[in-house]
């Protein structure tokens, strides 16, 4: 629930908070598992934030956990938007609110960078991994810079990672078989 209340801009912006609350503070799941969960959330229907909450909840406390984590995620946004929707057209015109949100954006940037640094430890460094990492990063940057709205971009990149991983396992199997 805390996570829902503090997440801006959905999906990826909430990763650092989830990662910190769930892996570091509560030790519910490991850093590697977090990345697997994110990949699954991205490649199944439904908003990433909701998918991730359900999955984490299930891992920690079974089906009930999944349902409760998701409801917990939804309640803060629900309440906030419900209140705002009565006067939303004036909302952003208050200078204090606007200033606060600008400050929060900077905070989110710092959080995202530090999450990358922490999660990096869980990834094995090898050639294929580096290639996947660099190409995903450059494709994402180029696409967002030229502002092409291709909604299946990150999904296709994740699928590419999955296929590469399976193909590599197949190749490794063949090598073992021929020995």
């Amino acid at each position: 629930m805390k996570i829902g209340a503090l997440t801006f801009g959905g999906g990826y912006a909430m990763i650092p908070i989830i990662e910190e609350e769930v892996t570091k503070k509560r030790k519910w799941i490991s850093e590697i598992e977090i990345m697997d969960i994110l990949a699954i959330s991205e490649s199944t229907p439904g908003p990433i934030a909701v998918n991730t909450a359900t999955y984490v909840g299930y891992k920690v406390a079974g089906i009930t956990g999944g349902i409760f984590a998701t409801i917990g995620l939804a309640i803060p946004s629900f309440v906030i938007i419900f209140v705002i929707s009565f006067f939303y057209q004036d909302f952003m015109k208050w200078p204090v609110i606007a200033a606060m949100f600008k400050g929060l954006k900077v905070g989110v940037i710092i959080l995202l960078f530090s999450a990358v640094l922490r999660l990096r430890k869980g990834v094995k460094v090898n050639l294929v991994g580096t290639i996947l990492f660099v190409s995903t990063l450059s494709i994402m940057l180029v696409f967002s810079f030229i502002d092409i709205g291709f909604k299946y971009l990150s999904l296709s990149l994740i699928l590419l990672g999955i296929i590469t991983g399976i193909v590599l396992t197949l190749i490794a199997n063949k090598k073992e078989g021929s020995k």
Partner: protein
Amino acid sequence: MIFFELFYTFFLIGLFTFGGGYAMIPMIQEQVVSKGWISESNLTDFIAVSEATPGPFAINISTFVGNSVGGVFGAICSTIGVILPSIIIILIIAMIMKKFMKNKYVQGALSGVRPVVLALILSTALVLFIKVLFFRGNSFKGEWEFDVRSFALLVILSGMLFIYKKVRKKSLGAIKLLGLSALLGIIIFTV
């Protein structure tokens, strides 16, 4: 019945959206604007508000539309509608994954996916960094403009975090950090 219609519409939207919140916008335009539940310009306004308020976009938009069409109960129906497909699908997958986690191919697939996910997070960070610091209106469509105040805030915050880590031997919690950045934001951007 309007409540059932809200539930059903957002259930469909939840079921057929892949990826994060904004991937839903085309679906919402198609399903919600065409029903006359919300106008095109209201939707655009709301996207801006949603971007500036906490919470996942999917839940924000379904609460907003539900409330404007059917009051509190409408908001509840559409929000439950949008999260229900995720709950069902993810629970099923999580149960299946438990069995297959030790499978070689599943492990292979996951090891291929991890660098991609890491790169996706890093690119989100970089894009946000560039937008906030160098573009007016925090969008690539805006004019090129270096935002001195955001930069100052970034430097101050990073400095404070660094000192905190040195002194306390652990990093500042994410939630405290966000509180601090909101507070400093109010000071820096209103003077």
